[in-house]
């Protein structure tokens, strides 16, 4: 199926829209006896229950020499637990139609469950979720297999321009900071990982003190409390606080990496460390980026590169807000022969945006999209679950969604202009071009 917008463009949008809101969402919050944080929205419209349990166990907890360990741990949690082999776990889940998946991001990792809310189905699937979270066996054979599969995937990726570019981009932006490491790891680090490394990573990071349990669906508060106790009671306890991560230094000067590749299209990425979840410029940058390259066909980048010149199918920009400044990224793919032309237009568009800022009309349109589109952002249980996890992990206020549109609305033209001027220096962007013979 083909879509007018690309997934990467939509992906860019999602990062942004992932935070906008202005209507009340009745979030209930409490702490379990063992110390896990619980976020719950009761929703009786459908007989289903969505649950996520997340920890400070994302890619940022990887040491450079063990890149890929965090991801390997998340992916192997459910491959054997409390003596049950993986086959039994998979079958028992399928028997009740439940869907269990690992979630893995730069900052956080955990498990997500979707189940019917009827008693038999709910009990059976929650029992399995509790087992994989609390008593994972990490069977040697499953670890070895997943390592081999990951290494095979990395070898394949090493031939594809998209992943080649992404890896070079993150490495150039973040250097030795864990955000610069590939989340799935590297061939040389994965080869060294052992079962005991996975087990130790689990005990250190999947601890009750860090657990964020989110629940949306067809259960009462009392049932939600029971479920949260069941999921948190047997989790490991923290022994020592996790180490602080290094500060991210903004790049002093621009850098352009050209990586040769025979593909018909060049993959171009530009960017710099952007903003964090709690950034004081969050709303100004968020709004400004919608105008620059986050708003799809309403954005300047799409207008200049695609609509006016037909140079690319997909061109976008986004901020990925993380615990520490995540990337600001502009990306596109274009026929190798015209990559320099496309790059020049992107740079000109960015520079003009940073220098002159948006127009009053653009700002008004952006606010109308973000404010008017709020109800679409919480129109399903699955989307609400995503917000609960976000609020819980980043310790955002419970009224974060209610307040979001107000904060967006208060942003002025001067705020956007000022924030972009201070935070995005077109001259110090990292540029990665994968394609062609590697020369300009």
């Amino acid at each position, binding site marked *: 199926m*083909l879509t007018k917008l690309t997934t990467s463009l939509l992906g860019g949008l999602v990062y942004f829209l992932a935070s906008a809101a202005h209507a009340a969402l009745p979030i209930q919050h409490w702490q379990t006896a063992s110390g896990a944080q619980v976020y719950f929205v009761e929703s009786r419209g459908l007989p289903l229950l969505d649950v996520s349990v997340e920890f400070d166990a994302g890619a940022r907890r990887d040491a450079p020499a063990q890149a890929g360990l965090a991801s390997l741990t998340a992916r192997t949690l459910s491959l054997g637990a409390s003596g049950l082999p993986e086959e039994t776990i998979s079958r028992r889940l*399928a028997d009740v139609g439940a869907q269990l998946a690992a979630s893995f991001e730069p900052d956080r990792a955990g498990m997500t469950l979707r189940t019917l809310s009827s008693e038999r189905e709910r009990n059976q699937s929650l029992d399995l979720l509790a087992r994989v979270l609390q008593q994972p066996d990490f069977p040697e054979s499953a670890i070895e297999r997943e390592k081999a599969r990951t290494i095979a995937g990395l070898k394949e990726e090493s031939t594809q321009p998209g992943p080649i570019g992404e890896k070079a981009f993150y490495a150039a932006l973040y250097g030795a900071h864990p955000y610069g490491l590939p989340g799935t790891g590297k061939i040389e680090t994965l080869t060294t990982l052992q079962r005991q490394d996975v087990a130790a990573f689990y005990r250190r990071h999947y601890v009750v003190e860090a657990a964020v349990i989110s629940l949306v669906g067809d259960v009462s508060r009392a049932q939600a409390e029971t479920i949260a106790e069941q999921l948190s009671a047997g989790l490991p306890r923290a022994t020592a606080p996790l180490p602080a991560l290094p500060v991210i230094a903004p790049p002093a000067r621009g850098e352009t990496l050209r990586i040769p590749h025979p593909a018909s299209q060049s993959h171009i990425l530009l960017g710099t460390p952007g903003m964090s979840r709690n950034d004081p410029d969050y709303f100004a940058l968020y709004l400004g980026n919608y105008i620059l390259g986050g708003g799809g066909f309403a954005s300047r980048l799409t207008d200049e590169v695609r609509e006016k010149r037909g140079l690319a199918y997909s061109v976008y920009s986004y901020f990925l807000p993380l615990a520490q400044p995540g990337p600001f990224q502009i990306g596109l793919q274009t026929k190798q022969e015209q990559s320099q032309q496309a790059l020049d237009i992107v740079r000109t568009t960015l520079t003009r945006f940073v220098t002159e800022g948006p127009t009053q009309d653009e700002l008004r349109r952006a606010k109308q999209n973000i404010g008017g589109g709020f*109800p*679409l952002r919480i129109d399903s249980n699955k989307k609400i679950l995503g917000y609960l996890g976000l609020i819980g992990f980043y310790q955002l206020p419970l009224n974060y969604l209610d307040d979001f549109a107000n904060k967006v609305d208060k942003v002025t033209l001067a705020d956007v202009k000022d924030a972009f001027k201070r935070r995005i220096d077109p001259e110090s962007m990292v540029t990665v071009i994968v394609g062609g013979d590697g020369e300009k």
Partner: protein
Amino acid sequence: MLTKALLGIALLGLAGGAAANPYEHRLANGMKVIVKEDRRAPVVVSQIWYRAGSMDEQNGTTGVAHVLEHMMFKGTPKVPAGQFSKIIAEAGGRENAFTNRDYTAYFQQLKTDKLPLAFKLEADRMENLVLTEQEFAKEIQVVMEERRMRTDDKPQALVFEQLNAAALSAHPYRHPVIGWMDDLENMRVEDARAWYQRWYAPNNATLVVVGDVQHEEVFKLAQTHFGPLKAHPLPARKPQQEPQQRGIKRVLVKAQAKLPYIALAYRVPVLQDVSQDIEPYALEILSGVLDGHAAARLNQALVRESRLATDVGAGYGAISRGPGLFLIEATPSEGQNVLDLEQGIRQEIARVQREGISAEELQRVKAQVVAAQVYQRDSMFYQGMLIGQMESTGLSWRDEKVMLERLNAVTAEQVQAVAQKYLQDDGLTLATLDPQPMEAKRPTQNSVGGRHAH
């Protein structure tokens, strides 16, 4: 890569809420309107489905259905080029479009009170689209970039394209939806114009609305905006039936990649008579038994146990205007060769043919069907998709109840029987990716992707 067609039928979903929901109405000009009321959030999705997809294209202009989809955003006398998307965005909405073999669809997601805006814009471009040379010249470049991104630079996509082209010899399903590059390079604005005039008419469209709406009001609103549009005669559609396949077909695809990959396509029937057919339902269950969950047969045997593969998948879609294919794809593990993996897949098929499936496996697939019924109702967009897909392929949303009953009535013997009858070499096409080493430098500008003649 393969659509996980697992339970494509099953996912169609029981109507939620009132027994009468969804509601159907036909305008005098022949346009069908289907409304599903879902009051869970104050939003609405509006989708317009044209029964014209890549299978309705002619040789030499493959890809035109999708090119026209792009051109539908290029303006009318009242709404200049590019404004459609901006107007919806300013109303807080999201919008997009997609083209498939069977249909082309356009959608908007909005706050409920903005529904009239979506209708107004869609009705306008159904009749008044302006196709200029200038806009076409730019947009065809965008589409070629899309093809490069999705297919030309993706080894597995190239394999899949070749598999499809080899598996079918007469039916237009053998052509990629995005079109062959040479056809795109030679496409003219007249081709897009002819396509628009031929297929874009209210009597070839179905409007599907799901959300916090009252169906009678939506019918009235549809009458206001779409009612004045004129029906026009549609061209006859030729059946273009595939001739019988007479033996296995094999395709080798060389492309720059690291790992090999194989894809198998077996010719199988699709749903024709929802209340009498048995085989399409049995094939749906079979795909669930082979690949419905992590411990389903293919993953369990080939990824987890023998470790011949790093990934394996199976897919089948019973709802389709054209001929059906039962697809299996797999990537061998390092050090394993493709032939051994092919043998491994064949052994799993042979096991179903010889021993059948257990009552437990059958029940497990059906449990997933029941759960999927509920899960799909969490998304208004998806509920609309399912209605639109059925309507665009000649079925009715009303068929879903019967289809679910029939699916639930499938026996283990029927699953074994379809495996025996259809998963046979005489109806098989097998495509293999032969990975070529990367050249660090591109020797000449035209040596890679030599298909691009210009």
